[in-house]
């Protein structure tokens, strides 16, 4: 599976986080197994999605807060896992290693999202001007343009990250894979417990005490 196919699928699913629908097909629990299935290992994709969902359950878009890009994190973790899988290495240890790198994407993805929202400001000003001149269909055109641009930018970002991270993992796994991956299986077993701790704490705390926005 080439990186650009994963990037295009990821960017299409990413549209659901903000721009189109919000049917939750961009959630890690859906993105992980979908991409994992493309690589022939949906179960590990599901595990990656479940870990991210539980640990980042408090990342919610309240008010002007822009949460980390969990969809991108899942796309990269599953994409790197799947592409390294093609080289003959596998297991949940490799999935944890991929997530270790992919977790860095969260804030980068948020930064990309913020930049795209700033770019939308330009679209908003443009529509204002067009409507003043009586160009009413400009509104519909701008909506399509903004969605298309978001898709294109995110696809490019994912593709670049997939290629770069894939290169790092490709260099790491043959050298230290034997030592690392076995140890990381322990981490894979522990991650649901840490995630469930976040969920329990989230459900127990009183909403009036704050939304836990980070």
């Amino acid at each position, binding site marked *: 599976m080439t990186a650009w196919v994963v990037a295009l699928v990821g960017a299409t699913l990413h549209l659901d986080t903000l*721009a189109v629908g919000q049917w*939750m097909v961009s*959630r890690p629990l859906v993105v992980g197994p979908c991409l994992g299935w493309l690589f022939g290992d949906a*179960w590990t994709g599901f595990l990656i999605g479940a870990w991210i969902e539980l640990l980042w359950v408090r990342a919610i878009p309240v008010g002007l807060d822009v949460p*980390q890009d969990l969809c991108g994190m899942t796309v990269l973790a599953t994409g790197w896992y799947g592409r390294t899988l093609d080289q003959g290495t596998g297991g949940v240890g490799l999935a944890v290693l991929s997530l*270790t790198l992919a977790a860095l994407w969260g804030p980068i993805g948020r930064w990309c999202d913020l930049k795209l929202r700033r770019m939308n400001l330009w*679209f908003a000003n443009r529509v204002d001007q067009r409507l003043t001149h009586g160009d009413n269909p400009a509104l519909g055109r701008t909506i399509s343009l903004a969605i298309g641009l978001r898709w294109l930018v995110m696809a490019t970002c994912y593709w670049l990250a997939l290629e770069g991270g894939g290169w790092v993992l490709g260099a790491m796994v043959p050298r230290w894979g034997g030592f690392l991956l076995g140890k990381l299986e322990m981490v894979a077993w522990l991650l649901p417990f*840490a995630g469930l701790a*976040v969920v*329990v704490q989230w459900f127990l705390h009183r909403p009036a005490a704050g939304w836990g926005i980070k």
Partner: protein
Amino acid sequence: MIPHRHPTLFSVWWRSFLIQAVWNMKGRQHLGFAFAITPWLRRLAPDPRFFQTALRRHLACFGTHPYMVNILLGIVCALEEARARTGRSVPENTEVHSIEQIKATMAGPLAAIGDHVIWATWRPWTVLMGVAIGLVPWASPNVRWPVAVGTFLGLYNVGHLVVRVEGLWQGYHQGTAVVAWLSHWHLQRIAAGLRQSGVLISVVLILSLLIPKVSWRREFFALFVFGTGFWMARRGRWGTPLFYLVLLLGFLGALFGV
């Protein structure tokens, strides 16, 4: 003669899925709102000049929860229709004086309800159900993951679509009285129930993960990680810092033969 309303209302509903397509810091969802209401305004004011004036009224800064916006879309559709029929912007007994004011007044409270009930409770709860179905070993993994994903998407979107469809419908038919309809749902009580059941499901899931015996040292270590995770989450250190801490703890645990 104003054309039939239902197909136009459906068009407004369909376009509401793009409400955040051009989300920006200046107007937030204003372009999405204007885009969604366009078919309705076109229906009420086929003359391009009137249509443009009506459309420009909806280009002021506006932001609320993306699902709860359908309630406001319904209310605004009803008020715009009343304005087109009678020439008055709002019914006589309404205290506020314009559609724009009603939008501005209701957007905040609706956003608060949506954030609390949908983002902070309904979504984590459905996610937890999906994860529980996937992680509890009741069948082979190849059976479990599609059921888990299907359960999450199915459960979540039932609630999502009820809010979108009922919100628009009730908003249109009840106008600003929709607030009374909303209060009949006892959303606070439903959210509290979901949170309590979420804690219960989490505890059952933890037990089911511990039951397949590995070793008492490993199980104790898992409970230690759970406690550490809970403590960190209380301090607001969830997500990335917690992941890297578990990575370190797990790696050290494996290194020292836990």
